[in-house]
């Protein structure tokens, strides 16, 4: 039987060549990005670590109460106190900062991309396979170009996290806007709205629940990626997990894993309620304030 030998397509080589080309030619840009992100995350975590954990836990508790409810706030405070007790507080803060910064970047890119996809069929068609690729490529793979571009440390971790966490906000923003009833958009146009007004006053408010689901998913993926990113020196709780695995230290592994679970649950509950239209203490306080002002105005005019 004649052997059928086709030359192997140099796909992987091409990607590697591309990344090397990027490093060679755009090194300055990557350096700049790395410095900026390093400064931001550094300042952020230094600031949070400067505050005593007790104060910080109380502040978190109040914030969580404002946008969720008493029970969630109580459990969050207990959970965070437990992490502090386990001696993992600095790592938790580092991880939190990493997740928050990565999620903010992912949303800043993802939500506008989702909006643009609703405006252009071509872009939507082009983005679909890209998003599939980003979501199904094993996340470890992102670490390689991240290290090549940014070296070891927090920034490549951020880079990999952003790429991994971006698809849900893109998809759910797109989905939310395309599900806004046609009659609503027609109504806005019929009353003289321009494109920007249709987006700001009809499409975005009506797709807010879907967009917020995207934000929630983005946070969850961010947390799971942050653990993986510790393999390239991103620090935080992931690093402790890695250490416990390499030492087969079950006690440490359980504790650090539990800390991640607590962080994930707190962030999930916080982001889940926003935009869902549920009554939260914050909206009640705002309402009470508005009523109070109205009363005052009425008194003044009388």
């Amino acid at each position: 039987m004649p052997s059928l030998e086709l030359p192997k397509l140099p796909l992987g080589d091409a990607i590697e060549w591309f990344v090397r080309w990027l490093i060679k030619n755009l090194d300055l840009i990557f350096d700049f990005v790395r410095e900026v992100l390093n400064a931001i995350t550094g300042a952020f975590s230094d600031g949070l670590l400067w505050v005593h954990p007790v104060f910080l836990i109380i502040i978190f508790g109040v914030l969580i109460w404002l946008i969720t409810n008493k029970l969630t706030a109580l459990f969050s405070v207990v959970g965070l106190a437990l992490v502090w007790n386990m001696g993992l507080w600095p790592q938790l803060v580092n991880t939190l900062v990493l997740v928050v910064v990565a999620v903010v970047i992912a949303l800043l890119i993802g939500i506008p991309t989702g909006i643009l996809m609703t405006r252009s069929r071509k872009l939507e068609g082009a983005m679909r396979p890209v998003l599939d690729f980003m979501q199904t490529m094993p996340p470890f793979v992102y670490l390689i170009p991240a290290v090549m571009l940014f070296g070891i440390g927090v920034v490549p971790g951020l880079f990999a996290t952003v790429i991994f966490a971006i698809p849900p906000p893109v998809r759910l923003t797109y989905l939310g806007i395309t599900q806004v009833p046609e009659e609503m958009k027609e109504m806005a146009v019929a009353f003289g709205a321009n494109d920007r007004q249709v987006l700001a006053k009809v499409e975005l408010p009506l797709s807010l629940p879907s967009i917020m689901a995207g934000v929630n998913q983005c946070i969850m993926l961010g947390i799971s990626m942050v653990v993986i990113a510790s393999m390239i020196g991103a620090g935080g709780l992931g690093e402790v997990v890695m250490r416990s695995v390499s030492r087969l230290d079950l006690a440490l592994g359980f504790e650090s894993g539990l800390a991640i679970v607590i962080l994930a649950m707190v962030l999930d509950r916080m982001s889940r309620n926003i935009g869902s239209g549920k009554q939260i203490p914050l909206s009640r306080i705002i309402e009470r304030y508005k009523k109070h002002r109205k009363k005052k105005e009425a008194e003044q005019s009388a």
Partner: protein
Amino acid sequence: MNIKIEAKNLVKIYGENTDKALELFNQGLSRSEIIQETGLTVGVANVNFEIAEGEIFVIIGLSGSGKSTLLRCINGLLMPTSGSLFVDDKAVEKLNEEELRKLRGEKISMVFQHFALLPNRTITDNVAFGLELRGTPLEERRKRAQEALVKVGLEEWKDKLPSELSGGMKQRVGLARALVMDSDILLMDEPFGALDALIRAEMQEELISLQREIKKTVVFVTHDLDEALRLGDRIAIMRDGAIEQVGTADEILSNPANEYVEKFLQGIDVSKILDANSISKWPREVIRETEGVSVALHRMKKADTDYLFVLGARNKLVGMILREDVLKLAKDKQTSIKDIIKETDSVQSNTIMRDVYPELRNAEKDLAVLDENGRFLGVITHSILLMTLDERKGGDGIAES
């Protein structure tokens, strides 16, 4: 009479690359042939009409007849493929984006079938939506929104969300949102189609009385013939994108242009369309309250009746006098009839025939028909009612009630 909206040879074909379809249409091919040939749908097929300022113009047709498409050509939500649509003598299809937005924001307002209220906004903010787009300051638009809500009777609901309102209330909000713009033209796309029958009748009444006050040019799309006949100053019947007949309700009912219109009119319930005024007749004789006994007797004899309606100044109905009472007065040698005037049964001129029937059944004599100022317009007798029903072959409505 001022022409407010005018369509000239208006054609709307849906889809891209309409040139070929338009050519086929101009060659006289039918709608289905054009779909087969090009895959494109002819929404509006060479339509001409003029709508006068201040009239309610109803467009009626089955679903898919192109009535909503035609409506959307008026405010440029859809652009005609050929032909023109003029609003105040300006061709809508020639306006640029900015002028079009101005037209929609200032001159034309629209009411939608499924209300299209924004669920995240309070009723006030929904009503103020158009003003907000226009850039009206917050204080002013809140104030104007509340005035509009008073007009539709929903001022107490101003801080509620749309989800807390019933269907009828939601459409009142939709109406208020259009009214607050203070535009000349109101486009209504099957506004009461999603409401149940009782609420629909109520809303129609309200629209009629509101229209008396605001006198807008209203273009009203519906598939409900009763509604069309009841509301429309003039009615256009559409089929397959073309207008089959335009005219007043009376013109169309008494003189259908073709077989399709005739078929369309079949099965409608005249008892719901004709009102008391349109079937009433002036009695053979009436009497003034200042006239005397002998005149009364003379007239009763002449008209062969045992009672007369008594009218006061400016034809205001005072009551009625019965023959037996007049005879008694004559015996006592009295001359004034004032003391024997009795109360009489009456209906408002806009009461529909279906509601006239039970009134007539309970009436002591016949029914007087009055306008809103209490002036006497005529009388409805049992025989008039039966004759009307017989003429129009629409008695089912009466049998039900």
